[in-house]
């Protein structure tokens, strides 16, 4: 009987192709929009997640809270303190620095390029591998001697020297109010998808690495310590341990010490993004409602047109239920067909968008399943009234209908 109903429904849909298609269009657009929007949202989240992974999921900074009212000089960290923390927690912490950076302008003859150099220790690549294409990364000797050596990103190198292959070239820049000559020891390349670049807002400044001993020499103060825990160390479990230690050395309450980990931040951004994509998806789902009303409308027309057929079927022994199921199958099938076409459309839009923006796109299977299920439900729900109208028809009246 199910197969019989399906073939009858298919027959009815096929015998009015244009009308069926126009009716499905509402569902097609609705489902297509929901899939596209939710998938774009998911892809954006993915870009952010990747960006955070870029920053390092096992990274955190620790500082004396900005909320304390009596901020003291001793609340700053200096290099010695950093070294001590490194010593104490050497089995937990893989990398630590004073989170120093130099915001400056690199000058090569007449060429001036704005740069933001990140001060790093020589083992930075242990926690953040870099794709070195020319030369080498900052090494231990550079850091120890506070050598004026830098590693540039390839596109910044091109801007400054006209070529990425510029190892050994020199330029001048001012760090800590002191203008000196610097030598390029390496060039790295970083892949960033257009979408990620757009979302993360890669500004005007070029990027590069410099020994942190150059940017923050002995005696310089830093408000925060930047560290990466070793693989297998749980950040959440480690936090109280380091907080306790820092609180003791700074003579502060533990509640005055803040640790901000990338994982925590990512969680909060992720939940905001997913809430946003759910909200927009919800708005798109309203169009499904409109599509459902379209189906109901056409089913009403269909029931009226086929009054005589309903009369014949009833005379030949169809029960109320049989007629009801026949029309419900028709509306559900029409809606589900629309849903499937909508999915194809939505996925196509997302794929094309992803190809254009060179971004990996994600279409969650659960979203697809929900979309089909929902469109089927829309069909059944909006089919109930027309179907029951058909089922309740009086066979004598219906047979007389012209």
């Amino acid at each position, binding site marked *: *009987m*199910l*197969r*019989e*109903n399906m073939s009858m429904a298919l*027959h009815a849909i096929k*015998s009015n192709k244009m009308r069926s298609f126009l009716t499905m269009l509402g569902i097609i657009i609705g489902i297509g929009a929901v899939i596209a929007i939710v998938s774009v949202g998911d892809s954006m989240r993915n870009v952010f997640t990747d960006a955070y992974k870029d920053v390092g999921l096992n990274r955190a900074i620790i500082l004396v809270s900005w909320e304390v009212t009596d901020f003291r000089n001793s609340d700053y960290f200096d290099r010695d303190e950093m070294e001590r923390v490194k010593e104490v927690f050497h089995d937990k912490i893989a990398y630590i620095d004073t989170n120093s950076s130099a915001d400056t302008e690199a000058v090569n003859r007449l060429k001036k390029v704005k740069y933001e150099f990140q001060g790093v220790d020589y083992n930075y690549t242990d926690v953040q591998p870099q794709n070195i294409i020319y030369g080498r990364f900052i090494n231990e000797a550079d850091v120890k001697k506070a050598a004026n050596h830098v590693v540039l990103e390839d596109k910044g190198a091109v801007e400054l020297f006209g070529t990425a292959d510029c190892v050994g070239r020199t330029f001048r820049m001012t760090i800590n109010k002191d203008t000196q000559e610097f030598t390029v020891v390496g060039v790295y390349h970083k892949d960033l998808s257009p979408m990620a670049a757009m979302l993360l807002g890669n500004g005007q400044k070029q990027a590069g690495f410099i020994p942190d001993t150059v940017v923050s020499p002995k005696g310089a103060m830093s408000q925060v310590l930047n560290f990466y825990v070793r693989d297998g160390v749980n950040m959440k479990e480690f936090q109280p341990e380091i907080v306790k230690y820092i609180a003791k050395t700074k003579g502060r309450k533990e509640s005055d010490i803040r640790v901000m980990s990338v994982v925590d931040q990512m969680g909060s951004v992720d939940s905001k993004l997913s809430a946003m994509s759910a909200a927009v998806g919800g708005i798109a789902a309203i169009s499904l409602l409109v599509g459902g009303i379209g189906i109901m409308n056409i089913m009403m027309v269909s029931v009226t047109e086929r009054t*005589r*057929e309903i*009369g*014949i*079927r*009833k*005379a*030949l*022994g*169809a*029960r*109320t*239920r*049989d007629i009801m*199921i026949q029309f419900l199958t028709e509306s559900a099938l029409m809606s589900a067909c629309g849903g499937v076409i909508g999915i194809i459309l939505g996925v196509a839009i997302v794929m094309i968008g992803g190809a254009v923006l060179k971004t990996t796109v994600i279409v969650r299977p659960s979203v697809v399943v929900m979309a089909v299920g929902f469109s089927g439900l829309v069909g059944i729900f909006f089919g109930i009234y027309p179907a029951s109208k058909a089922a309740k028809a009086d*066979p*004598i009246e219906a*047979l007389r209908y012209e």
Partner: protein
Amino acid sequence: MWKKKEVIPDYITQNISEDLIKLVDMVKIYDTGSIKVLGLKRVNLTIKRGEFVAIMGQSGSGKSTLMNILGCLDRPTMGHYFLDGIDTADLPSDDLSAIRNRKIGFVFQSFNLISRTSALKNVELPMTYAHISKKAREKRALGLLERVGLGTRYEHMPNELSGGQRQRVAIARALANEPPLILADEPTGNLDSASSVEIMELFSKLHNEGATVVLVTHEEDIAAFTNRIIRFRDGSLVSDTPNIPVSKREKEELQEPEHQSGDALC
């Protein structure tokens, strides 16, 4: 479809009574809201298994009302209608559907085939509602189309068939579930006289093979094919007479041009 086992009461599926149709003091009143119209007045009537009966009357005589009640499309207001021993007066509409499906084969004036659906599928329809398997349905429907002389046209749509052919499909459909009663409402009303004769001969053949055929008509020529003529006037049964079916010679007479009155009388 909801995996619910279909339970058709035994009394619907078994043939239990020699009196196929039995009307006892049957009254039908139409309640139109403001006025009540008496459709049928105290009708008492018995039709036995295997009879070939014509019910005659002018429009407004109550023959259509009777037809609807005999066809279980409507219920009597008072009195009883026993179809094959089943009192249909108090049955719920789904049971009436089951009775129509198993006990009655309908043939209508306007054929009432489902459009854009092949002759084969049309014949299969009553069997679909009787939950007969697809294979068995197809086999039986093909056999029935063969029997009414349309064995090669099973794939044709109703609009590709002539009036007479359509009515043959309808008759094949009426026979689908082997119902004890064939109920034909003005079956030749939309046909030319040649086709009319063919259709009536088909009914005669079915009758000779043992079927009970009740047909409603206002044409004497058509009623002449039957064994018994029951006349109605103003909602009352006025006469019930046996009839000797027309001979072969008279049938030929009916085929002559001056007798083409089928459509004119509609």
